[in-house]
């Protein structure tokens, strides 16, 4: 039985160009910080890659700070901008209710250990942040806010957030956006958005694991998390991972992801679900969304059961988040959109990528009725 991978929002296959570029670089010797011939050669390759990424993301090369992950970029941005703000008497960290844990958890850490106060922007039933709430917040407490961090698109529902408007409302307050899911999936330009900082991750776009980037405005200097050799504007010390960076750039440059094609797959999949399971609902259906993410609630089921049954059909999809013990938890994103604990635990995320096909969609739709029937029978809660 062939297997079907519909979890591209978790990670997606490396594109061939990236694989070739990265493996070639693995064989080359030289620390980019070294001053000799070997070092210079690696430095040249690495800076070429930085320029490629800068072009793709609409920023200056000097604004690209490589990190080991999207999580690290989020931590660097949120903590760095908070500390910078705190030095100027600002202690409030504003995030949305639907951020990834790589923003929520550092925000809570700042609250517990560094004197921050978190204010959370709610979302509506369609999964979009409440801009009126933000406007009111800035009008009343704007001078206390150190940083605003709102994701560019949500990883569970794919719903796009109005970052341009957030920046307009925020005025001079630094805005960071986690664009890990958006890069290459929807038009994205750092300079046009006007944010202070933006997070990217290579493995979500067909690049390797273990490399991300914080795009940070040139003139903004924030305290570092990692101290050492002073690489990356002294904001992120550590020998640069040249092979991964080269792979990242190759993936960023690649034209393999056809937004219109993936969106069409998604729409055909949604039509199939609606026909097969009439009471299923698509979360965030009324909003502008990424092309590749479909979040479905199947009433009367438990998503961990559905995942097991789907896995048994060799279909890989996702239930959202799990706690450290591996226990499936109700998604904070769906709860924020108005779901209750039960319906939030009855949802699956299917995410499409460049390698997904109509045959994948058709197969999943064909097994859904049996999976949902068994899933409902096994739900004793």
């Amino acid at each position, binding site marked *: 039985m062939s297997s079907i991978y519909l979890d591209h929002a978790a990670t997606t296959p490396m594109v061939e160009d990236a694989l070739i570029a990265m493996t070639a670089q693995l064989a080359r010797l030289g620390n980019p910080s070294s001053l000799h011939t070997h070092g210079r050669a690696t430095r040249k390759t690495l800076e070429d890659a930085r320029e490629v990424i800068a072009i793709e993301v609409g920023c200056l090369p000097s604004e690209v700070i490589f990190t080991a992950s999207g999580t690290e970029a989020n931590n660097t941005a949120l903590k760095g901008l908070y500390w910078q703000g705190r030095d100027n008497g600002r202690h409030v960290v504003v995030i949305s209710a639907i951020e990834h844990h790589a923003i929520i958890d550092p925000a809570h850490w700042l609250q517990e250990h560094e004197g921050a106060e978190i204010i959370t922007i709610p979302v509506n039933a369609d999964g979009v942040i409440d801009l009126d709430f933000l406007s009111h917040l800035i009008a009343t407490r704007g001078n206390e806010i150190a940083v605003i961090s709102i994701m560019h698109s949500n990883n569970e529902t794919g719903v796009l957030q109005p970052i341009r408007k957030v920046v307009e409302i925020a005025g001079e307050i630094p805005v960071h956006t986690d664009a890990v899911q958006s890069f290459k999936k929807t038009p994205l330009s750092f300079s046009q958005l006007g944010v202070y900082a933006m997070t990217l991750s290579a493995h979500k776009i067909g690049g390797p694991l273990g490399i991300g980037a914080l795009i940070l405005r040139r003139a903004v200097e924030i305290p570092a998390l990692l101290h050492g050799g002073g690489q990356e504007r002294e904001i992120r010390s550590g020998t640069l991972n040249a092979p991964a960076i080269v792979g990242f750039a190759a993936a960023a440059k690649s034209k393999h992801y056809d937004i219109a094609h993936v969106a069409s797959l998604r729409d055909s999949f949604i039509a199939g679900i609606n026909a097969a399971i009439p009471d299923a609902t698509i979360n965030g259906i009324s909003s502008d969304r990424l092309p590749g993410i479909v979040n479905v609630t199947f009433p009367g089921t438990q998503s*961990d*059961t559905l*995942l*097991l*049954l789907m*896995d*048994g059909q060799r279909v890989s999809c996702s239930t959202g988040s*799990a706690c*450290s*013990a*591996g*226990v*499936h938890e109700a998604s904070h994103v769906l709860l924020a959109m108005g779901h209750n604990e039960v319906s939030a635990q009855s949802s699956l995320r299917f995410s499409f990528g460049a390698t997904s096909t109509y045959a994948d969609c058709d197969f999943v739709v064909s097994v859904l009725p049996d999976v949902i029937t*068994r*899933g409902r*029978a*096994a739900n*004793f809660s």
Partner: protein
Amino acid sequence: MKLIAAMSGGVDSAVAAARAVEAGHEVIGVHLALSANPQKYRSGARGCCTIEDSHDARRAADVIGIPFYIWDMAEEFHDGVVEDFLSEYAAGRTPNPCLRCNEKIKFAAVLDRARAMGFDGVVTGHYARTEITDSGKTLHRAVDHSKDQSYVLSVLTVEQIRGAIFPLGDTTKVDIRKEAEARGLAVAQKPDSHDICFVPSGDNAGWLRDRLGSETGPIVDQDGVKIGEHKGAYTYTIGQRKGLGLTVPTADGSPRFVLKIEPVSNTVVVGAREDLAVSTMRGERPVWCGPAVTNQKLRGFVQVRAHGAALACSYFLDGALLVAELDEPLLGLATGQAMVIYDGDRVVGSATICETE
């Protein structure tokens, strides 16, 4: 068959899953998350649902080469096992939580869910055997009597036994560890779990005191004369001699033993050793692991503790109660414990002891 292997992260359930795979079954490993706030690491032989245990279970499943999932049974476990444990103690009885867990979680919640999902049964690492006989699938002691767990499985109905697979019943524990080693399972030398898994400190009395309070009350003799004071009646067990703190000696200087715990009056009754003797026990809510027992008196054995001795007896059903008449009296028997009837090594059934005399 399509089977769910319940994997605790210990050596037994890992080998059981591996044996089920080898027997040709389609097996999926499931770790039951039984605590809402699990501890990160095991401390020695205590507990079985830490995050470390779930990692061990996952690693074993990966090495065996089967899919692995975690099922959240924390709510069912709390309601069916932990709450039952507390209310039984509060009522002056001595419950066995492992038995409740088998009855309500492993072979009820898990088996029901597995069957609804299209699986045929549940594999566990219990040391017990089943046999297919003329009267159906029956439950038996493991060949390794020192590890035999048929006692805590005696609450399973015929229907539950039908869905239960115990691949370890024919092997000794020593050999299971060797087999785990040979199969490359890192849990081969992991210590056995002892005590009660949801009391990680091992201090049952302290755990109960935190939840039930420690209201002092009288310790009385059989005439009702107060001869001491206790700190929470449920921290005592029937037959207990030490730690009573009594200052009034008996006339002949003989020791006193706990005879009875009366939760309503919060009283502990003590008396002489011979007053502990029990020759007849009655149990309520009987469960039959095979053909039902009738009012016809039969010869067999009764066991009243997980690793206690099998005591020769006659047994029969008296109305709704299972009765066992012992050949030789037994000293110290608490209500709330399970009385398990054996016909040779076959488990006939069990009941919860409600009366002794």
